[in-house]
């Protein structure tokens, strides 16, 4: 069922205008290369879903790929604000996007519900906060046994999920280790999925730790070394904390951001060219 494609082919095949797209990676294994390829292919009108909306979505939002955004935290982790996200929320730049905001627990439970083929998730939370006033997708029900009030949110069932992982084997089974976040749930909740990996090996094995996502829930595997940069891939390379800091200056000003994206993303053919250019310019 799994195809091995180049990232360009996979994005062409699966990322269509108007779809809902979850790109996950909780502080680790963030699918940055895939985000840049979507920008390169100028795909618009996406409903973006991501718990920790950080640089990858700042780039996509700033470049106008998104019509909607569902998120539960948006910032530059360890650095501060996300300037493109702020610009769209505060000034509708580059255009207005619809925001569907949650807390982490709500999104985590909603992904679990999606992966479990449930229409909704119940949990505790949001009571007496302002969220139910601004998000009509937060409702409350009573436990039929105790009468206790519980919070309900709709399941997340994206059209497409994209994640990054350490390895795939030649059948398309995916192996990842370290901080595993919400990626497995995102894949299982989605109708289709793309996984970028650092390398393709003969066989993957849980006996060395980590988890395996079986091939039959993955549509496309793309080998993209360093594909999580500036995030990291445990066992391969560390987080570029420096790039996170530099993103603050790159993204602060609209024109500076656009120039930078033009130079490094739109004017390069793929992620390896992008990385080569970054290295030449002293970013890595």
């Amino acid at each position, binding site marked *: 069922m799994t195809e091995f494609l180049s990232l360009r082919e996979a994005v062409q095949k699966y990322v269509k205008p108007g779809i809902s797209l979850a790109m996950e990676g*909780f502080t680790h294994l963030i699918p940055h290369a895939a985000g840049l390829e979507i920008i390169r292919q100028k795909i618009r009108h996406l409903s973006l879903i991501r718990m920790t909306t950080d640089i990858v979505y700042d780039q996509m939002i700033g470049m106008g790929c998104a019509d909607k955004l569902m998120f*539960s935290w948006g910032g530059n982790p*360890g650095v501060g604000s996300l300037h493109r996200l702020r610009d769209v929320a*505060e000034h509708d730049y580059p255009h207005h996007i619809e925001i569907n905001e949650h807390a982490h*627990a709500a999104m985590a439970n909603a992904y679990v519900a999606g992966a479990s083929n449930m229409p909704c998730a119940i949990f505790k939370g949001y*009571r007496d906060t302002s969220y139910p006033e601004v998000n009509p997708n937060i409702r409350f029900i009573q436990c039929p046994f105790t009468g206790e009030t519980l919070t309900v949110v709709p399941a997340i069932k994206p059209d497409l999920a994209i994640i990054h992982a350490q390895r795939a084997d030649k059948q398309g089974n995916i192996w990842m280790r370290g901080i595993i976040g919400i990626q497995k749930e995102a894949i299982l909740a989605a109708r289709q999925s793309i996984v970028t990996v650092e390398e393709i090996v003969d066989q993957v094995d849980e006996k060395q730790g980590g988890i395996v996502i079986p091939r039959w829930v993955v549509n496309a595997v793309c080998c993209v070394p360093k594909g999580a940069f500036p995030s990291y891939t445990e066992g391969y390379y560390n987080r570029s904390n420096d790039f996170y800091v530099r993103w603050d200056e790159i993204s602060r000003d609209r024109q500076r951001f656009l120039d930078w994206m033009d130079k490094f993303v739109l004017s390069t053919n793929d992620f390896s060219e992008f990385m080569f250019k970054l290295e030449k310019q002293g970013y890595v």
Partner: protein
Amino acid sequence: MSKTGYTSSEMMVITASRFLKNDAVVFIGIGLPSLAANLARRLHAPDISMIYESGTLDTKPDRPPLSIGDDELSRKALSIVSVPEMFCYWLQGGKIDIGFLGAAQIDRFANINTTVIGNYSHPMVRLPGAGGACEISGFCTHTLIMLRQTPRNFVKTLDFLTSVGFGKGSDSRSGLGFTGEGPQAVITDLGILEPSPDTKELIMTYLYPGVSIEKVRKSTGWPLKIAEPINITSVPNKEELMVLRTLEKMMK
């Protein structure tokens, strides 16, 4: 710094670290809370269990992490769990003693805002949002809130209520389904506020050495209640400062 020999941030971190006992299971965000926990672990709480939102249970980083997903946290963790497990089993499950929270705004009942300044639909400042704050405030047995004390931060009315401290005060927190008892203390750059046992309104109970009552009143956007007599915290000792500064150097 010149006057006291330490900065107000250092005082905040050291004060927070003093709240952490050796057997505590602590949920930590990045920044000052992470520094405070790492400081406590190197001083009086070597067995403290540090939990970061990214999924690392009981991690023992050699250097304080730069983000909650820092590879140092994952390499040194006793266990790494998925995001749903962290939020369902560990946080909502009530398995954590102390949670740290930051805030852009706080009100007199220790409710906090980390979502927007201004109107939600057209915010003046779009802040990062809730992240794990709702569940930390709801389900950690106690929470410690760290933020600077200014009239802009300590407000009469929050622009947005991101996570509940004591709601409208008194017993308004009970019945919300939370296992946590709510904020234990608010640690600022001027001193410590603690909830009154009955009304749950925040009372300034400790000042840092050299901070005046006038100063804290002016730094608070509501008529601040102050304990009488007011306590004064002890100054950072040499070891606290030395270890803290070593930690900060590791983060450069």
